[in-house]
């Protein structure tokens, strides 16, 4: 089993050059400052250090960059009080309460305890944490940034909320197994800058690899998957996101989501508004844009874009072959074309051209031709809106077709759009659509 890319990278980078001041405060926007919670009355010493408010505001900004709230808040629940279930092949993790409540949250923690969690992946009592908490990435965060996040969390209103325990399946519930995994696959280490690259590139790399924890989803083989499967567990194909029917495309493949050929401005637009002329975000990525990326400063969003654009091409995953255009296949594609004309063309256009920033193009769109086709199947069954963001407050949406089209019709129309207007990709089968309906979470 190949060790994950992440470890190779961290080995390569360790000890290279003097780090620039990575944690130099990002220009905290007024928005971030005003979004900082009001200090609680009574719970804190009256005379606060003058800088405390600023530190909290910076912490609030960084916590957003790390999307801590996204995982540590149940649907419709109190922010940061935990209780969200994350279903994975290893069982269901329930996120803990990280508000400063003394009994059910982290109110008794010190900044050192918190640093140990972020940097070493250990709880206050020394228990090794499961990497469902992405400390494999957060370990790259600097001590100053960790302290800022901690001061933000400590300033939140405490919420008394006990969450149900995680239900981890045997044998993954065995601590020795987790410890073994950690010794082999987890190396704590703050991000070390590459002196040959610009400050902007390094800032971008720091955010993408650290707080942004992009590789938790987008990496071909994330460390958890690699090792657990040695122990006899299920393997996750490619970047299939744990416990969901979404596939996170590789950021290092021009056939998937590699951004080498995109203008930096369009990458920034996609990350911060959720839509762009070439692609829109949906599903888990829309959630990340809404809760995290849209709140980045212009400078930080640009830095991330510059770094992402520079990622080298990896060896592309083998693609399922496009079909030979036999008489029979042509017949199917023609049926797909008829369905397209009736249900899809109004928005996506007669040549799959879409409307920039409103309806995504399907011609030349990599998400459409990607292998496996799980995301496009989901799009058609469930529809969806890109996120509401400051830059795109009232997005246009796609209707769900699960109740309108039969599995066979979904397969036909998708086979057509994957093989029309210059697109070439494998046919979608009725069985694939059926599987997606079942596993729809």
């Amino acid at each position: 089993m190949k060790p994950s890319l992440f470890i190779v990278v961290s080995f390569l980078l360790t000890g290279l050059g003097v780090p620039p001041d990575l944690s130099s405060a990002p220009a905290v926007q007024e928005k971030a400052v005003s979004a900082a919670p009001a200090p609680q009355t009574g719970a804190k010493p009256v005379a606060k250090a003058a800088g405390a408010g600023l530190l909290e505001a910076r912490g609030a900004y960084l916590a957003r960059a790390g999307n801590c709230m996204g995982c540590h808040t149940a649907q419709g629940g109190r922010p940061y009080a935990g209780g969200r279930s994350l279903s994975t092949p290893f069982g269901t993790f329930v996120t803990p309460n990280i508000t400063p409540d003394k009994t059910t949250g982290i109110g008794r923690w010190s900044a050192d305890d918190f640093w140990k969690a972020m940097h070493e992946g250990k709880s206050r009592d020394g228990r090794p944490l499961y990497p469902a908490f992405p400390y494999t990435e957060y370990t790259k965060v600097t001590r100053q940034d960790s302290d800022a996040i901690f001061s933000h969390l400590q300033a939140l209103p405490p919420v008394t909320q006990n969450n149900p325990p995680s239900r981890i399946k045997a044998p993954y519930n065995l601590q020795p197994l987790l410890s073994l995994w950690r010794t082999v696959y987890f190396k704590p280490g703050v991000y070390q800058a590459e002196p040959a690259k610009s400050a902007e590139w390094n800032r971008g790399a720091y955010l993408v690899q650290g707080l942004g924890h992009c590789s938790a989803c987008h990496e071909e083989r994330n460390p958890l998957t690699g090792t657990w499967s040695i122990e006899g567990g299920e393997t996750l194909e490619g970047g299939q996101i744990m416990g969901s029917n979404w596939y996170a495309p590789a950021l290092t493949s021009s056939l998937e989501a590699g951004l080498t050929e995109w203008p930096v401005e369009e990458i920034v637009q996609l990350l911060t508004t959720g839509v762009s002329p070439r692609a829109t975000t949906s599903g888990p990525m829309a959630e990340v844009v809404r809760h995290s990326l849209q709140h980045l400063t212009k400078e930080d969003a640009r830095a991330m874009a510059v770094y992402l654009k520079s990622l080298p091409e990896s060896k592309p995953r083998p693609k399922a072959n496009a079909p030979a255009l036999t008489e029979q296949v042509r017949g199917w594609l023609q049926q797909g074309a008829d369905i397209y004309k009736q249900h899809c063309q109004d928005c996506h256009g007669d040549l799959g051209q879409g409307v920039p920033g409103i309806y995504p193009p399907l011609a030349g769109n990599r998400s459409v031709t990607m292998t496996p086709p799980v995301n496009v199947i989901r799009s058609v069954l469930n529809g969806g809106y890109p996120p509401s963001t400051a830059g795109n407050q009232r997005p246009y949406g796609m209707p769900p077709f699960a109740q309108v089209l039969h599995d066979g019709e979904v397969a036909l129309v998708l086979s057509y759009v994957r093989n029309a207007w210059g697109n070439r990709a494998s046919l979608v089968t009725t069985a694939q659509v059926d599987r997606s309906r079942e596993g729809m979470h």
Partner: protein
Amino acid sequence: MTRLFVAALIYVAGLASAPGVAIAANSVDAPDTMAERMKPCTICHGRDEKTGRDAYYPRIAGKPEGYLFNQLRNFRDGRRYYRPMALLLENLSDQYLRDMAHYFSTLKQPYPPPEPMASTPEEIKLARKLIDVGDAARKIPPCRECHGRELMGTQPFIPGLLGLPRAYMIAQFGAWRSGGLMRRQSMDCMSEIAKELTVKEANAVAAWLAAQPVPAHTGSGVGLSAEMSRRCNIAQLEEALP
């Protein structure tokens, strides 16, 4: 041969920029309107109420704005359960949900004709008593107290009861009775009342309401009594509206 033909077409298109040449894409019309943005909704909530493959699709046009906003938030936040809508709304802001509520509340659509009355005289009596008089012993006010004298709703939070299909109302009563996820959040006053009703009463009321014609002037009423406002926690709900 075909290649040559296509090349010729492109050439012609380039020269004369003739409209309608097979190669040129027809541009997609995406006007900057709420109607265009709400296309994903109208696939189910069209002009008519309808029974879909998986559920009953209720009419939403013309219902009070605050009521619609509460329901949209409930679906998004998992407090009223219907998965296809939750997925659509999951990444949308409160402000956008308010805009949607406003849009649908102002939409005028003709009501369906009343359903035929299938109730026995005894069931009709039972229904009319609950609707006009209530049952003080069980703390059930008359339905008209909240839903308006004409039963056409009270702005901005209480929906009308006429023009709703019987099957939809029965499903709602069932969901309230079984408690659980449905509509837990906002308007507990209604779920408290629904839990008091027996299945027989709920069925009788739904059948009677569905058989009433919708009055010609279809606006909802205004002004809930102080007592009913308190009971439904209206003050708290008002904070969420613009």
